């Protein structure tokens, strides 16, 4: 823990000297199926014309960390360059039987479950390397989930700036207020990654946050 604190301190001191020129590592974290890849895709498509990964209704579609380097985001005349890091959804349990209802056979489901568990381990390992993290939550789900609290607790302990995104606000069940009341100390931006709704506010908050990194 002390080593990490020193590492982060020196990283911040030296990176501060080159602020504006360097590429910030922007991580997308959150539970499975919250829309991390959808949001990362939306940003990448808007600014590079290419997507970062595939999306699916089946949980754990992203089972390995995916990158897109040198993504230059332009907002209101300002430019910032990011290395986008899309991570597999973090969870405390994975049961291959849950995949069987998506017309998968037992063998495929077991392989997916195995890859998903490895993906969670990989996501956790990457936490230390992030400069800025966007926590993507499904606004239709209960935000009081221990995984969310644990990830945010870790980022706070590592002094990594956090932005919370309440995704899927296009759905009737969505509630940004619930997420705001669960995380009163953080800025929460409601978006729909699928339809590109409210991304202006997201970029505004992201730029503000990136200055803290």
């Amino acid at each position, binding site marked *: *823990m002390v080593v990490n604190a020193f590492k982060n301190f020196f990283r911040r001191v030296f990176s501060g000297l080159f602020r504006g020129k360097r590429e910030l590592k922007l991580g997308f974290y959150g539970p499975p199926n919250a829309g991390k890849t959808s949001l990362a895709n939306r940003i990448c498509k808007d600014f590079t014309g290419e997507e970062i990964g595939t999306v699916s209704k089946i949980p754990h579609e992203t089972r390995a960390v995916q990158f897109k380097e040198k993504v230059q985001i332009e907002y209101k005349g300002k430019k910032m360059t990011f290395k986008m890091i899309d991570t597999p959804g973090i969870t405390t*349990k994975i049961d291959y039987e849950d995949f069987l209802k998506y017309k998968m056979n037992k063998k495929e489901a077991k392989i997916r479950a195995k890859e998903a568990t490895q993906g969670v381990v990989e996501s956790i390992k990457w936490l230390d390397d992030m400069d800025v993290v966007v926590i993507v939550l499904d606004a239709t789900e*209960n935000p009081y989930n*221990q995984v969310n*609290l644990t990830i945010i607790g870790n980022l*706070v302990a590592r002094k990594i700036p956090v932005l919370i995104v309440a995704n899927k606000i296009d759905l009737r069940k969505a509630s940004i207020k619930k997420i705001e009341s669960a995380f*009163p100390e953080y800025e929460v931006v409601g978006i729909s990654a699928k339809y590109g709704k409210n991304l202006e506010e997201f970029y505004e908050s992201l730029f503000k946050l990136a200055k803290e990194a």
Partner: protein
Amino acid sequence: MVRKRLGKIKGFSIQFLPYSEIRGLDSNQRIRKILNIVLGNNILILQGRLEPEEETRLIGDTMAIIGHVRNFKGVELAVISGNNNEGFFGKVRKNLVSAIAGGDIGAVTIIGPATIVKEIKRNPKKIELLLKG
């Protein structure tokens, strides 16, 4: 009535672990101790909570075990902590108590195997432990 409902659930117990049992342990030993209890089909109620980094490691180690231990599908986890909106002096008092006790003993951590605990539902007003029938 209760007996009839609980009749379907077999082979688990609830274990309470006071914080003093893990206070002197390092992170590896703490996580190993907790996972050993959970792997024995027990729901663990731990006084206090782990450090944020230990909580993450617990999740990572849990994932690493899935597929290697028969019928183990992960855990359900919840940490019940005090009110975060307690103001400056409340936080100072809490930190002081934690420093003296060697950890956040005001919190409670519940961990159960996912094969037994279906879900730990929580909102600001209540916590429900839903077991598999």
